[in-house]
């Protein structure tokens, strides 16, 4: 697909990392402030989408990125299941999704047990998934008719 004008491209160069960082912030502070894995993941994905829209990409490279993202996505979900399954194995009463890590003090960054970990995994997953959806739609639109 083709890129956009120089104005959009130059601004994107500077703004995309900041958007991504903001997404990471939302994910990391998901258990303390509004937001969390899903919202942060969407913001992170929007940084990538902005970059692809502004700069334009070659179809083959997009396909490559899509398969890499698929890998990341599956890995994230598997990680989530492993964290949930650890509760089944570690906790004494076989509780799926049990929060067995020390929960800490309310309001600190390192608190709430496994919830920050789950937020990070959900953030990765959502970021990968939404970028994949976008890339897949671009690829479907641009590829030659069968």
């Amino acid at each position, binding site marked *: 697909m083709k890129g956009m004008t120089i104005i959009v491209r130059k601004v994107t160069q500077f703004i995309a990392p900041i958007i991504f960082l903001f997404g990471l912030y939302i994910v990391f502070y998901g258990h303390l402030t509004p937001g969390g894995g*899903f919202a942060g993941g969407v913001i992170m994905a929007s940084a990538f989408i902005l970059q692809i829209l502004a700069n334009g990409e070659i179809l083959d490279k997009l396909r490559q990125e899509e398969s890499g993202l698929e890998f990341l996505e599956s890995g994230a979900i598997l990680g989530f299941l492993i964290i949930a399954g650890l509760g089944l194995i570690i906790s004494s009463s076989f509780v799926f999704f049990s929060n067995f890590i020390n929960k800490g003090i309310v309001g600190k960054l390192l608190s709430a047990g496994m919830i920050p970990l789950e937020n990070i995994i959900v953030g990765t997953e959502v970021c990968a998934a939404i970028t994949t959806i976008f890339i*897949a739609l671009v690829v479907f639109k641009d590829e030659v*008719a069968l």
Partner: protein
Amino acid sequence: MIPFILCLILFLIGLYGIITQKNLIKIIIGLAIMEYSVNLFLIMIGYIEGGTAPIFAEKFHLNNYVDPLPQAMILTAIVIGLATTALLLAMAIRLYRKYGTFDIRKINSLKG
């Protein structure tokens, strides 16, 4: 009461779109509108007049906060809606590749 009526009207607009429109994309938009109206309905269920956000902080009162459960439900419903809408759009693009049109009257290889 008025917000619920407006929500119902939004729902009906979406339903009207699905039933009457002949363009695939417009049908998808109709579905999306319906989905938003249902989400809006869910969030209104948990709302309390003057309630605070259900976050544990200094201003938190135990007897005056909005119900967080519908909000969790909506987040899930939004994610699911995202998946269905994306899938529908992908199908629509594929259909356009095959038939060269978005018009539902011309997409009719299935009969009987």
